[in-house]
C-alpha cells in the first residue's frame, strides 16, 4: 500500500498541532493544560505530523482529537483502545495516541483497556483522571473515593475505586507513568518518555474538573502542599521528597514507609532507588499502592518502562515470515486449492 509520506519541510512548532476548531471545555478545566503540553511536546518527537493519529472514546476529555491538527478519530464510549489497535495493526508506522477519561477507560471500556495493555500494542494511552463523569454532568466514576456524594449517589458512593496504575500493572503494562495537569514541565518529560517507549505507554493524568469535582487534587498540585504530598520518581535516584528534600521512602518488608532524613536515624543510603527498567513489576506496584496511603506521598513520573514484544510488530513479522515460508499468496492457486474436477 502506497502511503504518501513527504517529510515535512520545516521544523514543526506547537501551532502546527493546533486545529482551527474552537476549544470548548469549561473555563479552568484541566484538559486545556494537557492539550497545551501535548501540542508542545509533539514537535520534538521527530515524527512527521501526518503520522500522528489521536483516537478517543466519549467524554469531555475525548473531544481532544478535534483540537489537534493531526489525524483524529473520536469513536464510541470506552472502545478507543480497540479502534487504536486496528489502526496500529493496519499501519504500524503511525504514532497512535489514545485519549480517554476514567469513566471511559475503566467503566465501559475496562475490558479493552486491559487487553490493549496485555497485547502491548504500540500506542500512547493518556487517561485523564478527574475521578468523576464530566460530560454526563457529575456522576461518580470508578476512580471516585468511597462515600463520594454525587447526583447518582446522594448518600455517598459505596464502591471501591480502581487504582488505574495498579490495574495497568496488573494487566502487564510495559510502561506506566503518572503526571498532573498543573505541572507542565513534569508532564512534558513524561510525554517524551512515553513517546520514546515501544509498546503501550500508559499515563494517568490527574485532571481537575472544575465543575463537578473541583479540588480533587489540590493537595498534590498547590504550591504550599505539593512537595510534601508528591514524590517524583526518577530513574536511578533515591526516593527523596518534601519541601526541603528532607524525607524519603524506604521499604519495611513489603511496606513502603516515609522516613525523615534529618532526625539522624536514616540517610539517603537507606532509601529505595528507583529503577524504571526493572523486569519485576513488584516495586512499581508497591509505588502505585502509595497513592492510597494518606501517610505517604503520591508518586508521579515514570513508574516502569521495560522492553517487550509489541503486538502490531509481531503481526507484521508473522506475516512476513509466512510469506517467506509459504511464498507470497497467489490468488489463482488459492481458488484452485484442494481436489478439483472438470466438467466438460
Amino acid at each position: 500500500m502506497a502511503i504518501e509520506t513527504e517529510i515535512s519541510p520545516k521544523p514543526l512548532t506547537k501551532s502546527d498541532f493546533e486545529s482551527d476548531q474552537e476549544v470548548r471545555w469549561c473555563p479552568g478545566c484541566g484538559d486545556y493544560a494537557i492539550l497545551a503540553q501535548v501540542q508542545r511536546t509533539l514537535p520534538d518527537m521527530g515524527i512527521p505530523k501526518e503520522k500522528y493519529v489521536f483516537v478517543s472514546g466519549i467524554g469531555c476529555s475525548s473531544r481532544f482529537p478535534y483540537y489537534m491538527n493531526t489525524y483524529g478519530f473520536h469513536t464510541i464510549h470506552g472502545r478507543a483502545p480497540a479502534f487504536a489497535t486496528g489502526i496500529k495493526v493496519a499501519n504500524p508506522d503511525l504514532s497512535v495516541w489514545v485519549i480517554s477519561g476514567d469513566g471511559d477507560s475503566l467503566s465501559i471500556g475496562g475490558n479493552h483497556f486491559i487487553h490493549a495493555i496485555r497485547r502491548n500494542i504500540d500506542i500512547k494511552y493518556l487517561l485523564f483522571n478527574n475521578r468523576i463523569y464530566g460530560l454526563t454532568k457529575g456522576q461518580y466514576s470508578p476512580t471516585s473515593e468511597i462515600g463520594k456524594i454525587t447526583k447518582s449517589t446522594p448518600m455517598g458512593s459505596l464502591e471501591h475505586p480502581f487504582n488505574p496504575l495498579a490495574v495497568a500493572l496488573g494487566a502487564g503494562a510495559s510502561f506506566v507513568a503518572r503526571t498532573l495537569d498543573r505541572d507542565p514541565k513534569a508532564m512534558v518529560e513524561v510525554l517524551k518518555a512515553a513517546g520514546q517507549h515501544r509498546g503501550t505507554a500508559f499515563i494517568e493524568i490527574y485532571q481537575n474538573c472544575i465543575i463537578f469535582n473541583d479540588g480533587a487534587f489540590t493537595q498534590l498540585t498547590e504550591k504550599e502542599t505539593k512537595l510534601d504530598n508528591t514524590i517524583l520518581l526518577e530513574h536511578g535516584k533515591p526516593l527523596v521528597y518534601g519541601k526541603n528534600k528532607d524525607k524519603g521512602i524506604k521499604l519495611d518488608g513489603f511496606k513502603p514507609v516515609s522516613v525523615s532524613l534529618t532526625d539522624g536515624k536514616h540517610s539517603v543510603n537507606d532509601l529505595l532507588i528507583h529503577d524504571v527498567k526493572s523486569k519485576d513489576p513488584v516495586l512499581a506496584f508497591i509505588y502505585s499502592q502509595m497513592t492510597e496511603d494518606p501517610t505517604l506521598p503520591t508518586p508521579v513520573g515514570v513508574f516502569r518502562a521495560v522492553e517487550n514484544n509489541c503486538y502490531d510488530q509481531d503481526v507484521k513479522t508473522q506475516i512476513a515470515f509466512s510469506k517467506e515460508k509459504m511464498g507470497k499468496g497467489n490468488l489463482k492457486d488459492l481458488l484452485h486449492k484442494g481436489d478439483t474436477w472438470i466438467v466438460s
Partner: protein
Amino acid sequence: MAVESVLNLEEVTIRLAGDSGDGMQLVGTELTNTSALFGNDVGTLPDYPAEIRAPAGTLAGVSGFQLHIGSFDIHTPGDEVDVLVAMNPAALKANIKALKPNGVLIVNAESFDEKGLKLAAYTANPLEDGSLSGYQLFRVEMSSHTKAALRETGLDFKSMERCKNFFALGMIFWLFNRPMEYTIKFIEDKFSKKPLLAQANILALKGGFAYCEATEAFVNKYEINPAKLAPGKYRNLGGNEAIGLGFVAAAQKAGLELFLGSYPITPASDILHTMAKFKNFGVKTFQAEDEIAAVAASIGAAYAGDIAVTTTSGPGMCLKSEAINLAIMTELPLVIVDVQRAGPSTGLPTKTEQADLLQALYGRNGESPIPIIAASRPADCFEVAYEAIRIAIRYMTPVIVLSDGYIGNGAEPWLIPEVEQLPAINVDRHINKDQFYPYQRTEDTLTRPWAIPGMAGLEHRIGGLEKKNIMGTVNYEPENHEYMCRIRAEKVHRIANEFGPTEISGADSGDLLVLGWGGTYGAIRTAVEHCMKKGMKVSRVHLRWINPLPNDLGDILKRFKHVLIPEINLGQLSKVIRSEYLIDAIGLNKISGLPFNSKEIENKIEAILGGSNGHRN
C-alpha cells in the same frame, strides 16, 4: 442373498447419525467430497448438538449429517431421507421420522443392548418389536466387524471401536458405488503423524466395503450418474470457507491488505479459522476480546486504509451495533458478516434461522441506513463476500452480509471463477490535495474521500458526532443534520443503480410470485420448478440485496396476483415488502431451527393456487 440389481437413481438423500463422538460429520464430509469429485451435484446439512460433550448415547448427543446427491443440478440437502445409518438407538430415535417409507435403514446392531436402549429411553428394542417393519432394515454388527478388520493392528479395543465410522462409510461406498481412493488419501494426510491410526481407519473403511461385497448383505446396489453441470473446473466449497475466499480475492483485486477482527461464535468461527491460514496473502486476523473490540478494531483498520471485515453470529451482532453506527457516521468501508443462528439470546446455537434481518435493517439507534446483501447457497458466499467489499469501498459505507448456519456449514460444488474475470475493485480515493475536505462527495455515488493517516497535508478528524457536509467539522445545525441523514440514506439508495434488471424465473406475470432471500433459495427453487412442471402459473424472484431493494421490484410484484414469501422467521421480509410496496404478501414461516423442505413450500403454493391447475377463482 445375492445382489439383485443395480438401481439407477436420479438423486438420493443419505443421513448418517450417531453419537457426537462417533465422527459422523467427518465421514459425512468425506462422502460429500467423494460424490462431488465423482461428478454428482451435492447439497449438505450438518446437524450437531450444541453441547460439546453431551452424555454419550443420549438423544442430546446425537450428531447427524445429511447429504443429497444428484445426477442433476440440485438445490437442497434433500427433503426425505432414502438411506439412514444409525450408529446407536438414540440416533435411530432422533432420525427415523425423516426416513422415507420402505427406505434403507442400516443400524449398528450391537449398540441396541440394554444400556443403549435405556440411554435412548426406549422401553422395547425397536429392532425386535416390529416398529421398523415399514423400512428395509439391515442390522450390522459394526463394532465387531471393525474390530475383526483391525485385529492385526495391535490397537487397543477402544481405539478400534472409534474406527467404526469409517466401517460405516465403507458400506455406503459399496452401496453407492463410490471410489475409496480420495478418502484413503484424506486419511493418510490427516493421520500423517500417526501412521497406525491411518492404517486402522483405512482398514475399517475397506472392511466395510468388503463386508458388503462378501456377505451380499444388501438387495440392491445404487448408481447415481454424474450431474450435467455447467462446464468448467469445480471444487467442493463450504459456505464459511467461501466467505473467507471471497474476502481474500477482493483484497487481492483491490491491491489492499485485509484485516479481519472477530470473536469466536458458532456458526461463524470457521470464517476466522479459514482466514487465519491466509497470512501469506497479507491477511491480518485479530481475535479480539469481544465483538465490540472486533468491530472497533476493524473500523480502525478501515480508517487506516485496510480492507476491513468483521464476522459474527446473532448475539455478537447485537454487540456490534453501536460501532456499526459509527462506521455509518464516519462513512468508512467495512463488511460485517452475520452467520445467523436460531433464537433470541443464545437460542439454539447450532441450528439455523433467518431472523436477524430486521436487526440488520433497523437494530441501531437513529436513522441508520446500511446496505444488506444475503447469501443464498454455500458457493454463493464467495460472490456475496466479494461484492460486499466492492460496494463498501465504492460507496464508503459499512455493508452487512447475511448468511446462516445452514449455508455456512453446508457445502456444494463450486465452479471456480477465473481470477481475471472477477469484477474490478477500484480504490479511487477521490482526493483533491489543493482543496481537501473530509466530507466532500462525488456526484454519482455521494462518496466521501478515503484519506488515510500518513497522507501528508490531509490531516482531518472524524467521529460519531454529526459533521457538516463537505467540511467535516462538528456541526449541530438542525438543517445540516437533516441534510446529512438524507444523504446517508440516499447514498445507500443509489447502490440499486448498480443492479441489472431483476431476474425472474418463469413468466414475468402470473398468479403467484414466490419471493425469497438467503438460504431458502434451494427449497424455493425446487418447489417452484416442480409446480411449474405441473402447469401452475408460478414464478420466482430471489433477492440478493435486501437494502436497497431493486428499483424494479415494485413493478414486478404488482404483475402477480399473489406474492408468497417463505422465510425461516415469523415474517421479517414480508413486513418490509408490505410496508415498502403496500402489497398483501403471504408469509410462509417456519421457525424450528431447520431449513425448509421444498415439499413444504410446494404444498403452500398448491394451497394458494387451489390445486394443480394453476387457477384460482
